């Protein structure tokens, strides 16, 4: 019963963060802020959502698989964000956006 409540809270929080990430990726003014919104909430939303499912599944093979998925996502997600930011930064002399001004600001 308590496990159910905890897992539902985790899932709800996960849904919230997933949605926030999507909103941030759409609404924020430039590439770097969008990347910030997307990658952070991606990680948090993934942990919370998969954690919620894990509590529901109890001790089983499914939990092990979920842990594996979580592990790989935690490895690859930030790396992909890093690689992307790096590529955007390196090629800013051609078509990529310039570094954002320190104050931020709208397009």
């Amino acid at each position, binding site marked *: 019963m308590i496990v159910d409540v905890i897992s*539902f809270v985790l*899932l*709800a929080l*996960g*849904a*919230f963060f*997933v*949605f926030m*990430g*999507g*909103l941030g*990726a*759409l609404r924020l003014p430039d*590439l770097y802020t*969008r*990347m910030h919104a*997307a990658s952070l909430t*991606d990680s948090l*939303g*993934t942990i919370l*959502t*998969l954690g*919620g*499912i894990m509590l*529901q*599944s109890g001790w*089983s*093979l*499914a939990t092990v*698989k*979920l842990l*594996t*998925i979580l592990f*790989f*996502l935690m490895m*690859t*997600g930030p*790396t*992909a*964000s890093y*690689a*992307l930011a*790096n*590529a*955007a930064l*390196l*090629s800013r002399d*051609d*078509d*990529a*956006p310039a570094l954002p001004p320190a104050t931020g600001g709208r397009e």
Partner: protein
Amino acid sequence: MYYVVTTAILVTMALALTRALVGPTVYDRVLAVNMFGTKTVLLVAIIAFLSGRPDFLDLALAYALINFVGVLAVLEFFQKKRHFGRRS
């Protein structure tokens, strides 16, 4: 609660797709693709539970592993383009 999460994921997918459509830079689109990949992993994991077949988590595992390679291929593409662009 599963339905709430699934709905949130689908809405986020739509938002990410919008980002991929409007750009404006190519990097924004790659970012959107990457987001889309993570969301698909979550979606598949949740649907596997909803339909009572947790053994289909293999699929989510495949996505989690494969998506990253796509991003690296993009990185390599940019690098190649820059290399050959500078030479010519």
